[in-house]
């Protein structure tokens, strides 16, 4: 008896219906949702780290305007609920953008719901990353930065080669937490109809009426996704470990 046969039997004999393991249609919907969640998470993780790095740099910029923009961004996105941010982008902001002609000759929005989810969550997690990187940067002694300057590094050069590498080592644990949070936050994309994991699961359970089974599948899947991310982050932390520094 293979896996599909087992779950088919489990449903017939006991009414425990994990349809995604034996019904190819449900399985494909679920895998598509899983793929969307993974893609959304990976893109947002990378974009939010980039935003964090740029934002933390901007917070220490010479120009007061640049500093104010960075500070305003952090305040807005840290102090409002991510679901409200997402709704704001999708329902309030997106309607101001022009539409484009799609391949069927109809009108399609310039940015898809997936696109808005990427933008919204990247900005949300990025705001926290700015603060996280900043705390790391503040832990780099001023005298170390001065030593870099005395060697002829520009401010940007010192940031890139000295300050950031040291800061990242200090703030990896906090970054780790925030990125785990980000992966969990991607479920909010459900609210604007992005076909991610939760959306796919809800579609399946509303048709197959296996809410309890799908809920369990969802929990296990997210635990696995987060475990994967944490393992990757731990590996990164080990790679960055320097003898006699930190810890």
């Amino acid at each position, binding site marked *: 008896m293979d896996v599909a046969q087992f779950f088919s039997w489990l449903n017939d004999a006991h009414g425990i219906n994990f349809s995604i393991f034996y019904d190819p249609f449900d399985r494909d919907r679920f895998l598509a949702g899983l793929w969307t969640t993974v893609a959304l998470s990976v893109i947002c993780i990378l974009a939010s780290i980039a935003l964090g790095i740029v934002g933390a740099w901007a917070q220490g910029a010479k120009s007061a305007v640049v500093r104010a923009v960075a500070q305003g961004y952090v305040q807005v996105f840290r102090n409002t609920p991510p679901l409200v941010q997402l709704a704001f982008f999708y329902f309030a902001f997106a309607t101001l953008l022009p539409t484009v002609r799609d391949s069927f000759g109809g009108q399609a929005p310039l940015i898809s719901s997936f696109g808005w989810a990427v933008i919204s969550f990247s900005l949300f997690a990025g705001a926290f990353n700015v603060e996280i990187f900043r705390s790391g940067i503040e832990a780099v*002694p001023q*005298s*170390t930065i*001065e*030593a*870099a*300057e*005395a*060697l*002829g*590094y*520009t401010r940007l*050069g010192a940031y890139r*080669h*000295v300050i950031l*590498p*040291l800061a990242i*080592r200090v703030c990896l644990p906090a970054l780790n937490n925030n990125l785990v949070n980000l992966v969990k936050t991607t479920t909010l994309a459900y609210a604007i109809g992005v076909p991610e994991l939760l959306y796919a699961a809800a579609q399946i359970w509303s048709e197959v009426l296996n809410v309890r089974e799908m809920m369990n599948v969802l929990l296990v899947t997210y635990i696995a996704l987060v475990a994967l991310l944490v393992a990757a982050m731990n590996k990164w932390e080990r790679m*960055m470990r*320097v*003898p*006699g*520094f930190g810890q």
Partner: protein
Amino acid sequence: MTTGHHIGRPIVVIEGVEKAFGAVTVLRDINMTVSTGETVCIIGPSGSGKSTLLRCINALAPVTKGSITVDGQQVNDPKLDKLALRRKVGMVFQQYNLFAHKTALQNVMMAPIHVLGQQRAEVEERARRLLAKVRLTGKENSYPGELSGGQQQRVAIARSLAMNPSVMLFDEVTAALDPETKKEVLVTIRELAGEGMTCILVTHEMGFAREVADHVYFTDGGLIVEDGPPADLLCAPRHERTRAFLDQVL
């Protein structure tokens, strides 16, 4: 006793320099000329502005008044080419300030590669030679956290030398070290001075100052109280304040 090497043309010229942090004046009317190959020591009580003066020389701190030139380059020019200045001036700090995420060898190699864009292979060869010169052969792949204070300070000296500076500034580089490791660092600096490197040292090591300095300045309260050859200033100071300071440290 001086090192007896050739002393050439003026390279660091400080004229009427004043430095204030807000309302607090830290340096007042500093005048000093250092010539190539010369070793100059600055001594004086803590808080008298010695570090600030060194920081003004390589533009880490802007002067409030007066002028500093290094090899003809005006340091207080608003359009100062900082890179050009810092190529000429190396600086070593009390707290070593090595880059903790890089090995000793990488610390020495970083600036020539990142700042000067030199070829890695050629920089590495020079870096290994410099580490050998400061007696750290075998420590190339150690991280700063794995080295003693004296070893770290010698890496810091090699790191500065990798930029081929014309002038080296040393800011109390042995103050954080225990007597044993102090010696290793002082030996390195003495060799450097002996080879004709222009050195400006802030130090509390009076014996060392007497041995290596061509000229000694005593500062107090942001002023140069007196200056002269070490034999005169350290053994027969003219000013009461100098005498009081020397009595205290010797």
